[in-house]
């Protein structure tokens, strides 16, 4: 998939934005269904929350927060490119979005464990 005409930073930023967006959209229904059990059976919600104490699940949550942060920050970069004519330094901004997303999700992970 990584063909020669795609091997440059902004294409990878595009790929990351698309993959993170799609994964977040697929995660949302599960997220909503679990939260809705607060209404139907609070024990089930507690059961689901207890499941998140698992270290593997914590790692998955770290990934999820990373996806959310990198999609939001990457999206802010695109909004800046499109609506504020911030046209220079796009590669730096894209790299900063990834770095900041790692920082945010790392903070979440350290709080969670």
């Amino acid at each position, binding site marked *: 998939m990584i063909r020669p005409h795609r091997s440059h930073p902004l294409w990878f930023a595009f790929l990351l934005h*698309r993959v993170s*967006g*799609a994964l*977040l*959209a697929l995660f*949302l*229904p599960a*997220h*909503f*269904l679990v*939260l*809705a*059990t*607060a*209404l*139907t059976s*609070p024990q089930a*919600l*507690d059961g689901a*929350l207890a499941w*998140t*104490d698992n270290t593997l699940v914590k790692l998955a949550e770290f990934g999820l*927060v990373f996806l*959310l*942060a990198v999609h*939001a920050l990457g*999206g*802010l970069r695109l*909004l800046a490119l*499109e*609506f504020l004519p911030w046209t220079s330094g796009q590669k730096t901004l894209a790299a900063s979005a990834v770095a900041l997303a790692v920082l*945010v999700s790392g*903070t*979440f992970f350290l*709080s*969670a464990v």
Partner: protein
Amino acid sequence: MLGMKLYMAQRLSALIMAPLVIGHVGVMIYAVQGGLSAAEILGRTQGSVAWTLFYGLFVVAVSIHGAIGLRVVLFETVKLRGGGLNAVTWVIFLGLMILGSRAVWAVTVP
């Protein structure tokens, strides 16, 4: 495939979500400390009009944004076209709205 209106809906929903995501991530980092329990979460959120509005707006924006985003992926990657593409876009939007509204209701209203 993305005309003017869908593009504006996509970007405006993104603009609305920018502060909401920051708030949501902040809440997550705060709430996850010391483990999660239903009582702790619901004690903070249930009966709060502010949280209902916060997450209610979030659900509307994410339903629009997610439906249009997946529409683009389905068009470009899965090659879904025409009426089928429009139908699936609406199903995703309505599905996210229904599931999301139920979740916001459950967590913030009773």
